[in-house]
């Protein structure tokens, strides 16, 4: 088992009243799954994804990731944990504008303190695999949205994560670009056994997954 959420609650206090963002979420994810989280705006999809990705905290409940209790870990260990095992893909790509494609790919490796020669090899591999070798010296703003997201996925993958978290990865893309990214996810899941959890609005994209979780007002339905 990759991760397990037990009775997760998250709320904000608003004028003496608790507004629940997540309410009693229970979830088990096995390695190799491809899960789609769906639901209307404000239902807590992104919050759930951020909690899983340890970017956000929760107020109650337990979260085990690879048999580590995330809820009792200190910030520093938590960041070591997700640095090691989790890759993020964002709706608006979130590449560093000041760095070239190649340097953007290298960034996570730097934070993992990987040696220079190895870094070079890994980056070259990734560029090759995503057929973006010709674009390695370009800056993100010089690329189309689809290409940027391709780099985003490559960056998420380069640290060899067990889990990829994608928050509406195709939200800013046209249908053809969407199709390509989803095919890529499917391939990664099938051929390399990477676990993927994606948040999406589109039924069509959700269908790529092996399991769909529906949220409404912070609750699983």
């Amino acid at each position, binding site marked *: 088992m990759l991760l397990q959420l037990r009775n997760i609650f998250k709320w904000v206090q608003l004028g003496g009243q608790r507004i629940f963002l997540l309410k009693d979420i229970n979830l088990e994810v096995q390695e190799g799954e491809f899960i789609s989280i769906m639901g209307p705006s404000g239902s807590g999809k992104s919050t759930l994804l*951020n909690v899983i990705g340890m*970017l956000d905290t929760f107020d109650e409940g337990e979260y085990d990731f690879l048999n580590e209790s995330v809820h009792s870990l200190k910030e520093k260990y938590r960041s070591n944990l*997700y640095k090691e095992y989790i890759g993020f893909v*964002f709706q608006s790509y*979130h590449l560093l504008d*000041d*760095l070239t494609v190649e340097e953007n790919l290298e960034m*996570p490796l730097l*934070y993992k303190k990987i040696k220079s020669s190895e870094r070079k090899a890994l980056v070259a591999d990734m560029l090759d695999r995503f057929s973006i070798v010709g674009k390695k010296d370009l800056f993100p703003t010089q690329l189309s949205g689809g290409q940027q997201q391709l780099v985003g996925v490559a960056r998420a993958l380069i640290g060899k994560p067990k889990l990829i978290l994608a928050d509406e990865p195709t939200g800013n893309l046209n249908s053809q670009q969407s199709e390509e990214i989803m095919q890529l996810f499917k391939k990664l899941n099938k051929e390399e056994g990477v676990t993927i959890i994606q948040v999406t609005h589109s039924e069509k994209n959700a269908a790529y997954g092996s399991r769909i979780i529906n949220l409404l007002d912070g609750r699983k339905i």
Partner: protein
Amino acid sequence: MFKNYLKIAWRNLLKNKGYTFINVGGLALGMAVTLIIGLWIQDELSYNRYFKNKDSLAQVFQSQTFNGETGTGPAIPRPLEKGLRDGYGDNFKHLIMCSWTNDHYLKYGEKNISRPGNYMQKAGIEMFGLNIIKGEKDGLREINSIMLSESTADALFGNEDPIGKIITVSNEHKMNVSAVYSDIPVNNSFNDTDFVIPWKKYLANNEWIRNAEDQWGNNSFQMFVQLADNVTFDKINSTIKNVKKNLNEDTAQFNPQIFLFPMEEWYLRGNFENGKQVGGRIKYVWLFGIIGAFVLLLACINFMNLSTARSEKRGKEVGIRKSIGSQRGQLIYQFLSESFIVVLFAFIVAILLVLLSLNGFNELSKKEIVFPWGNGVFWGVSLLFILFTSLLAGSYPALYLSSFKPVDVLKGTFKTGKYAGLPRKILVVVQFTVSVAFIIGTVIVMQQINFAKNRPVGYDKEGLIQVPTFSQDFVGKYDLMRTEFLGSGAVIEMSTSSSPTTQIWSNRGGFTWEGKPEGFQEDLAWTEVSPEYAKSLNMKIVEGRDFSRDFATDSLGVLINETAKKYLGMENPVGQLLRDDNEEDPNPPLKIIGVVQDMITQSPYEPVKQGVYVYDRNDNASYYNMRLNPNQSATQNITTIQNVFKEHFPDIPFEYDFVDGEYGEKFASEERIGTLSGVFTALAILISCLGLFGLTSFVAEQRKKEIGVRKVLGASIFNVWNMLSKDFLKLVIISCFIAVPIAYFVMNGWLQEYPYRVILKWWIFAIAIVGAMFVTLLTVSFQAIKAAKANPVKSLRTE
């Protein structure tokens, strides 16, 4: 990793050129100012460090009290030498008598030059450790020997070997050049000593000095000492203070206090008030040190402000970095590295600025500062300075930026809270407080200088020259020369005097007069003049009459100034007598024939001293004062005068000074301070404005959407401008409220040092406030109007 940070920092600098210019430019400017001030301070502190025995050298000083007022100075009487040698000799390694540093004519063959120098006892050479380049180490052994500084020897002898040559001093004494010593550097009190002659010769030449051997009241000499090992200044000062009082009864009434004034304090702490040491130039060292620190602070504030202002732009980067695994410490490290790189870059620019401006600065400050390329300490301090500045400037943005939560910034819901701008506002307030205080300070310094400059001097200093006549050759030739000069057409009136127009060289007491209060110890400025003195200077006679050649009795007449009239307590001074109170062998009494208007001879910031102008019966004056013919050009006049002079005194170099120039010298120090603080104020304001400019552009950027919405809803350009400017104006007004009392307090304290001073007026403060507000509006408006004129469709579409 560091390479990566470097890359990002560099690209950031290149991408935001305007920001880089403001940030690096502002910081570099601030650093350049601080560097220059640092070099200036270093130069000031290095004064009087040339002699190797500097730590144990001192000059003998004396404080005396006249009518309750204590004056302190280096002039001491000759018998004090014996008193100290006999009673306290063990405490000194050396003790030497020395003359004042006076100009003398030095002549060799056709060459005739005028140079300043001293007579001193021979131990002085060893005591000061003069560096003998040629000739005898013990060069003052023979009474007719003279030691020359290297540059003086060069000027006289050129390529000839000077040792053993005979030169003529003051056109009468044949002296044998015994040694040549290295020039004493500019930043030394003995810089002017271009030659040294044995003290014995001084005695042999002058009867009055020989007679002074047992005159305790004749304070006309200098004495320098070197302490013996294991003797401290404190210890010896407590033992010798009453030496003169104990040895001489006549002068005991003035309570003479003798003490040693250490050489290391001469330059920076040389002021005395009522017998107490009260600092001196050291206050300017502090003043400029504080200015330097503040200017650097301003520049750092800019850096911090602009960096945090940009934080929203970089917030996304922080979010991304954190989500791919960066820890907070790494981000802090990254931002500090960036700050270090910018600071280093700014430092390089600052050094260029310093190199470009050093010449101008030297001219302004009358220094000869060179850039210390080879000085390890300088570079060490610079490195510390860079590290310190990057820490100071970078720590706030580093801590602030790295604290962002990735979810917040990435979701785009990140907004700086209501008070996120507060530190930034405080920083702007600090900046403008300093700037406004600087403006007020500079205006007041300038005002004080102008106030003193516009003070009536009591005579007409334009078109007046003085020619030194320090030689026996001039004695008895005044009447002849007067006829010659007047006849030449270049001079319309001339006179002689025993001291220059702009100085007092002699003071006397020991008189009685009708109505003199019991026990009154008078002290009168004493100038011996020829009868045409008042006429040649255009001094106004307010009572009685001027000297006249028609009355033979005028040779025992005297003119007094208005202050002296009050000082002597005379209702109707004309006709009264000043009698010598020496009962055994009195000089004939002097009859007051007139009262002249006060004339500023000393500091223009001090009240005029009570003075008397006595008929010079011996025709033994030090200066010719000549009123030039206004109908001819000055050059023409000078040439004519020089020709007449050369005709009669072919062996004496012709020298002259314009009196207004000499008078202007009195303001030189204050004017330098004024100009420098003016320059630094301008730079401080410039730096503050650069910061404000940058800050406004970011605020405008930040509120772009808001401005767009407002415009769509019908806001005019004026509305938007008003909205953006108001915030900053408020801050500047707060700054003014803080700066005004501080500036008032400090400047009022500064002015207290000048008895003759400008009164602080409220409008000075008003001008500073209005000026600061005007500059703020100008700076802010540029950006505000640009933002207000932008097409709202564009700014709204970017969302």
